[in-house]
């Protein structure tokens, strides 16, 4: 191959790149549709609209991507901790010097543009985690290593939480996927999922019903247990587990009603019953569902959506961009977008598995986890399966910070991967 060392061409995974470009293009068109106003007929390239600005962001992203692709792959490995440290500094700085936007102190303002360091913290944390796990001898079964890893994750979380960005904080839970792949005992995510399930159940049903359900399950479980396993130890740990679940459910009640702030509590309650207050708290959810539901099978057609265009859906070009897709392109369009994401995620996982260095693999899983988490929460909230958490849909939502951060996140991985293909050819 003539240009086998050229980092721009065949060394990059083309399938990922195509999927990425597909997402970016669809995203841009939908941002245009979301802000399109039939009486003004603004151009796709009008710089005063979100669509025009998004195009500018896409252009700057391209420059960033080229920069990533030309630097030496060792750069990311070597400077991983430095990135992390820099990002922590930025998160601290934004708390002091950040602009106040909708009660959130997480933005730097430069003229008309805003940058949110929290968006980049994910990437830096992923690099730091990859770097740490790359150390020989580090194992997720060792208590000490787990502590360190938890520390790396929790530190930026605290800072982002302090800037009132609950949504971005939750994204850090996505590292669980990488950790699971790297040997985290299965019971840890299992507990997490059980806790989440109990949390939702506790919101819907009275406590006593859940207790009854748990005890019923316990009895069933013991009955179905092989006789030889029914020793005192196992029964004791089951008892502890059940007690823990009950305490948790009781705790949820207290947590929701006493600890969470009102708007957070409402977002969760609306998840359970969006009809509580269709014009108040339930407005976002109801309008998002109306917009998507009215798209039917084929959608209303590009620029024909009435719900998103006329501002019935709030923040329709950022967090609720999926409504525009659902309304204008219907079930088919929604399915295409979901398929694009699943394809991209699967491709990243497959590529990650091929990596020779543990650094690249860990990083790849972090990327997949982060994108997955965003898609799951973002789409889930527009169709009423997740609480309203303000996080963007990767590559689709309008906004420079998220577009940059996701592109950087992805292309660092592609850069690492291109090194792997280059090596394999030697």
């Amino acid at each position: 191959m003539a240009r086998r060392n050229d980092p721009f061409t065949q060394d990059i995974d083309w399938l990922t790149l195509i999927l990425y470009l597909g997402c970016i293009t669809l995203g841009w068109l939908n941002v245009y549709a979301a802000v399109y106003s039939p009486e003004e007929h603004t151009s796709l390239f009008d710089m005063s609209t979100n669509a025009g600005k998004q195009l500018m962001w896409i252009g700057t992203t391209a420059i960033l991507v080229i920069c990533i692709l030309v630097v030496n792959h060792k750069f990311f490995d070597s400077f991983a901790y430095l990135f992390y440290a820099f990002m922590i500094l930025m998160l601290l700085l934004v708390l002091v010097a950040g602009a106040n936007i909708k009660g959130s102190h997480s933005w730097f303002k430069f003229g008309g543009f805003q940058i949110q360091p929290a968006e980049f913290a994910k990437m830096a944390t992923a690099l730091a985690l990859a770097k740490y796990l790359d150390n020989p001898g580090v194992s997720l079964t060792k208590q000490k290593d787990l502590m360190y890893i938890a520390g790396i994750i929790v530190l930026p979380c605290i800072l982002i939480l302090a800037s009132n960005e609950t949504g971005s904080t939750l994204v850090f839970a996505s590292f669980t996927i990488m950790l699971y792949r790297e040997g985290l005992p299965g019971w840890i995510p299992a507990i997490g999922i059980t806790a989440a399930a109990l949390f939702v159940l506790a919101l819907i049903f009275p406590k006593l019903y859940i207790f009854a359900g748990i005890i019923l399950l316990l009895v069933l479980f013991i009955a179905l247990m092989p006789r030889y396993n029914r020793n005192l130890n196992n029964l004791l740990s089951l008892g502890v587990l059940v007690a823990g679940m009950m305490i948790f459910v009781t705790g949820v009640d207290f947590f929701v009603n006493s600890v969470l702030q009102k708007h957070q509590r409402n977002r969760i309650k609306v998840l359970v019953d969006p009809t509580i207050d269709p014009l108040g708290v339930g407005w976002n959810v109801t309008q998002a569902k109306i917009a998507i539901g009215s798209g039917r099978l084929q959608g209303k057609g590009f620029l024909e959506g009435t719900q998103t265009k006329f501002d019935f859906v709030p923040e329709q070009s950022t967090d609720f961009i999926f409504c525009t897709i659902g309304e204008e392109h219907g079930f088919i369009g929604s399915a295409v977008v979901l398929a694009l994401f699943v394809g991209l995620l699967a491709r990243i996982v497959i590529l990650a598995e091929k990596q020779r260095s543990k650094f690249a693999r860990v990083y790849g899983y972090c990327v997949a986890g982060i994108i997955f988490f965003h898609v799951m929460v973002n789409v889930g909230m527009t169709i009423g399966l997740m609480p309203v958490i303000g996080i963007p849909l990767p590559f689709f939502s309008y906004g420079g910070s998220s577009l940059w951060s996701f592109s950087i996140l992805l292309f660092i991985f592609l850069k690492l991967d291109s090194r792997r293909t280059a090596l394999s050819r030697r």
Partner: protein
Amino acid sequence: MLENRKYVIIGVFCLMALTYLARLFYLQVLDDTYSLGASKNSIKRVIEIPYRGQIYDRNNQLLVYNTPVYDLYVTPKKVNISDTTAFCRLMDITRSDFDSIMGLAQNYSAVKPSLFMRQLSKEDFARIQDALVDYQGFEPVISSMRTYPAHTMANALGYVSEISKKQLDNQDIPYYRQGDYIGHNGLEEQYEEQLRGKRGVKFVMQNVRGVNKGPWKNGEFDTLAVAGDNLITGIDVDVQQYADSLMKNKVGAVLAIEPATGEILVSVSAPTYDPNLLSSRYFSKNYRALIKNPYKPLINRPVMASYRPGSTFKLIQALIAQQQGSLLPSTVYGHAGSPMRCHCRGGNNLRGAVQNSCNPYFYYVFRKFLYFNGEHNTFKASAIGLRQWHDMAEKFGIGARLGVDLPSELKGNLPTPEYYDKAYRGALRWKFSNVYSLSIGEGELLISPLKLVNLAATIANRGWYITPHYIKGLGKVGVGVPEEYKVRHETGIDYKYYLPVIDGMRGAVANGTVTPLANIAGIDLCGKTGTSQNAKYGHKFDHSIFIGFAPMNNPKIAVAVFVENAGWGGKAAASVAALVAERYLKRKTEAKKLDEIVKASNYLPPANSLLTPKKPSPAKKDTTQKDPKPVQPKPLMTAIQPKAVTATVGMGGN
């Protein structure tokens, strides 16, 4: 081993995608409530009000048309007035008006426009237009207002104003919305459906704040507003206005119809008012003033007032008695034996009795009529006779609604035997001597001017009538006239019986009860005077009535005139009728002297006499005791249904 966990992870990704797809499939394909929600959300029906039809007279003169005016809308959120006092002065409203309007608007919506002020005339708008630029949030919307260039026929035309709450709630099909205009009373109400036209519907897309964002689907489902039909009436506006001028300073009604067609030529209700008063933004103020006016200008007297017909009713008596066979044209009755006074010399035949309005003559005619059935028991005979009398008189349209195209026609009263049975608490407890005042059109008879003009037309036609009506066409003459206005109603009286009566009517004008001045040369007026008892009920004067037609042969116009409190019918009412007939037939007024006398005469009762009389004070009790049932003065006759029978001694006719 750990490598296999990638399958778990990819599995989780796929599980999420499948769950979401299932959910999306449910939301988008299976459940259509959301797509309904969307159209409710963002697509609004906007009603376009069409131009209301205009109203014309028979000679293509405009009676009602639409003037462009400006409705001023306010969007509370945009309003920022620094000097409210100056603004109120500009708008000619008080501060409290301003506050209440703004409060209502704010309640409705801060961001959607609400009505601030209706119907600013062009002049008003021109005055404030420049200043309005400085006041944000006020937006003029062009609209239209009914205008009445002829300044006449206020009651017959009715008016157009905002729909009432009750009307809004009682709609069969929800057509009108709050704040819509609708015709009230008169022709505006009667022909509302034809005049209002067809509304246009536009579907527009609106954003979440209700701001318009252009047509939906490029207006594919929009319908255009269709202007209402013009209503052509049979009114002759020149004669109408002339009759108005004659009825100045009088209370009463003038009606004229074309006998051959039943078309109403003149419809005066006096006192009247300028219909433009109820068509401006000062509607409520003006309406309140009219309601309080003691002369009750809002009553449409031609159809809503009921009077005793007095001697004019003798015409019907003469006709039905001839038909029955109990009266011959040559029959002569004297005054002797009759309880009624009379001012003629007596000894008339039928023609003379009509000409001189001889009361005793018709006393005997009626007595013979009632007893003309072979029944010897006078009670039984009276019952049979009165039934026959009722059925024959009914054919003239008395005692029921004629069916004129106005919404407020009253029935009046034509007593039946049952009516007296009830009044006398049992059958066969009354006879001719109890009811003889009917013979000269007094007693329990109640009749509206419309029915009397119809009687005049019936006699002019020598036997039939077409229900009086205003409509002459919708859009074009003859189009859309209801079938019922083309049907001849026969009276069941033979042609020949009309001739002596008409002879008598001509004689009454030429040489009888009518003032000589009213016998205007060249119009050949035939008529009958009447004096409706009123003085008896505590008033100084009776009501003056005249009905007639002209010319005698091939009549072109039938007239009925009521002038309240104007004394005998031969003077006030007959003069007005003669002048109206002359004006219509000659298109000019030659009887200048009569014209002057009529215009100069004032029969308005003093306004304070019209207020509800105080209860008699104890000191006056003695004088009132003699009258066991003091009849309340009936200043301006409205619908009075006699409740009990008083054995009236008819003294009326002349």
